[in-house]
């Protein structure tokens, strides 16, 4: 069932967290890795606040759930030790404004990104996603897949810009895949032709 077709070539350079950038509205935003730069409990509380305020119209396939207890249950899952997470934090308010999670799925990872409505259309998604992929490289993540609603052209073009390629277009959602190349040093050589 899980035989996704990945791009032959891993993608190049992505910056790793922690880093800080200024969005198109001159707001300073820090991107932190959960674990090394912000502890899980603190990240959980920041993200509960962000997802409580999240516009349900921007949900994707039932994620994030609505209501604080369902949000906490879901965050409990995606913030487990075996998952990789980065959080975008607004410098001014110290509030979380964006989140990327990478959840293990065998030797692959499923990715999702969310940016709170007040901080959309300002370039934060691009910087957050690049940094999350850099975090993935640093944590030995190689194969990353995601699904995206096919009408969401803004998200699809963001993913394409990062190097994601469509691997399945036969469903309600598009499935897209990216290789980070973190296992180049031996674990996966089956597709390496030198």
């Amino acid at each position, binding site marked *: 069932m899980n035989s996704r077709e990945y791009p032959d070539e891993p993608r190049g350079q992505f910056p790793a967290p922690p880093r800080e950038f200024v969005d198109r509205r001159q707001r300073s935003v820090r991107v932190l890795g959960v674990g090394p730069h912000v502890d899980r409990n603190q990240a959980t509380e920041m993200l509960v606040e962000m997802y409580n305020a999240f516009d349900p119209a921007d949900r994707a396939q*039932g994620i994030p759930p609505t209501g604080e207890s369902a949000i906490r249950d879901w965050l409990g899952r*995606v913030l487990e030790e075996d998952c990789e997470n980065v959080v975008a934090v607004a410098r001014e308010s110290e509030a979380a404004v964006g989140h990327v999670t990478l*959840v293990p799925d065998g030797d692959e990872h499923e990715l999702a990104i969310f940016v709170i409505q007040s901080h959309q259309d300002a370039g934060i998604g691009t910087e957050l996603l690049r940094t999350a992929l850099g975090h993935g490289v640093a944590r030995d993540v190689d194969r990353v897949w995601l*699904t995206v609603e096919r009408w969401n052209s803004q998200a699809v073009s963001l993913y394409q810009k990062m190097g994601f390629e469509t691997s399945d277009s036969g*469903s309600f959602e598009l499935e897209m895949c990216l290789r980070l190349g973190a296992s180049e040093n031996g674990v996966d050589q089956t597709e390496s032709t030198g």
Partner: protein
Amino acid sequence: MNLLLGVGGTDDGIRAMERTLDRVDETDDDLTIAVFENTASGLTVDEVVDRVDDNLTTAGVKASVRRVEGHPGSGLVELAEREGFDRIVLGGGERSPMGKVQVGSVGQYVVMNAPMTVTLVR
């Protein structure tokens, strides 16, 4: 009501069957169970039929059990149209590792093509 429940042996389909049998036990709807092969389940049609028969016995519900050959989605819709079913009931899909709802291929086909009401059981 005249219900056609499709079961291909995937976990969401089995859950949908259990829930539907409980409900039919209360409502006395007429139930037909259409068994099809779903490559995602790894079960043969015979194995799924055995499972369905077991569940019917346990629940004490009467239903006729049919087999759908070929493309499961179109076979289900065709059977439902031909025999005038009011509603098709199917499993509502699985969750991805991070919890996203993913409607299976049979569910997607039926939702897009059935002229009658479709229930996806969550």
